[in-house]
């Protein structure tokens, strides 16, 4: 018996796959939007926030970057309830995504901010802008533009990492694959299908991020 591929289950389980896709897309949308926002906030704090807050942010970033996403997810979903913090698996998954991407993107964005020529801060200051106004209007957009490719890759990596949220019964693409597999016993086909779906998602996401980039930074200014 060499293995025979059998995709006859596909029509029956199509809704499950679709739901999984939607969940994964939701995870990445929420994760990317809130995560990058959190990253900007953290990078901002580390650049010009109150001194006491900087080590706090640094600790958060280091902790997240040096522990696996899976463990963060378990901690949030299974661990936090014993502190009275209960949330649904989707909320937990979203939170984990945001927390994770927030830490990574803050490091990337910080690099972009640090690459800002000092003259930009000084020009802002000498035009009577406050530090925050300078950050907001002068520094941020070019900094984001500088690191947009790196940030895009990180978002794709985090999207692929989201596959483990099926571990807490969040019904994403991987969950769909596992679910179908447990009903049809067609392990290979289901994993094959979901791998293809992720590959497509990754390509589409990268394309979308390129689009967002060209909207946010309509001109490719030199450096």
């Amino acid at each position, binding site marked *: 018996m060499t293995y025979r591929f059998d995709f006859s289950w596909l029509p029956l389980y199509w809704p499950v796959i679709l739901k999984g896709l939607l969940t994964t897309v939701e995870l990445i949308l929420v994760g990317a939007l809130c995560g990058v926002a959190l990253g900007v906030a953290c990078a901002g704090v580390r650049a010009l926030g109150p001194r006491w807050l900087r080590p706090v942010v640094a600790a958060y970033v280091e902790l997240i970057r040096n522990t696996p996403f899976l463990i963060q997810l378990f901690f949030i979903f299974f661990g936090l309830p014993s502190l009275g913090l209960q949330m649904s698996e989707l909320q937990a998954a979203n939170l984990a995504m945001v927390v994770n991407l927030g830490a990574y993107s803050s490091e990337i964005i910080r690099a972009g901010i640090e690459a800002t*020529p000092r003259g*930009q801060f*000084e020009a802002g*200051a*000498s*035009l009577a*802008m406050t530090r925050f106004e300078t950050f907001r209007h002068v520094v941020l957009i*070019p900094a984001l533009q500088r690191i947009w490719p790196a940030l895009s890759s990180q978002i794709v990596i985090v999207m692929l990492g989201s596959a483990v949220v099926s571990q807490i019964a969040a019904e994403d693409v991987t969950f769909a694959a596992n679910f179908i597999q447990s009903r049809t016993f067609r392990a290979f086909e289901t994993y094959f299908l979901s791998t293809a779906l992720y590959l497509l998602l990754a390509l589409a996401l990268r394309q979308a991020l390129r689009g967002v980039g060209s909207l946010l930074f309509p001109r490719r*200014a030199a450096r």
Partner: protein
Amino acid sequence: MSLIAITEVKKRFGDVEVLKGINLDVERGEVIAIIGKSGSGKSTLLRCVNGLEMIDDGSIMVAGAQLIPDELHLKALRLKVGMIFQQFNLFPHLSAGRNVMLSQMVVKKTPAAEAEAMARRMLDRVGLSHKFDAFPDQLSGGQQQRVAIARALAMQPMALLCDEITSALDPELVNEVLAVVKELAADGMTLMMVTHEMRFAREVCDRVVFMHQGRVHEIGPPEEVFGSPRTPELQQFLGAQLVA
């Protein structure tokens, strides 16, 4: 009363005392050239007047108000005194027009339409009204520096500080920027400028300040400073200038 009064200002970076007690009063409408060797503290002095560096001792008064280093007072100061840099420091993500509009809208909360009108007037004044929508990287160095001047002017400062604003320019472009500055001077703007353009300093300035080792070493009208330098240091400096 003088517009800018600098009294016994001292500034050190770590162990090095860069300004060793500067005294200088600038009258309203006066045009001051600051010359001196590299490292003599010219930039540091301007940066102190603009509040970009904190002074360690002495006092700086602008239009009667003491320079106090907190964000509120600094903002008030910088509304009175604009600064232009050697490296232009235009905002690369904004068009020339938006560069000029931004601080008006952010700092003074000027409505967009009004800020735009002002930006067009100022760009016109520096001869760049047709470049409103161009981005910095589409402009020559001279044009960029003129946009930077327009941007500072749009805040309607009482005085402008210029730190070697032509040093980063190709020789052909220097003149277009100096022409703009000359006009500003003729219009009565108070100017403090660090410059290496001796001919320009001689023609346009009311007084020339020669800095040496963190001190105002000689000061006077240009014909005096250039014509009959009193100290050997200034003589040597001017001699070197001629050769270069």
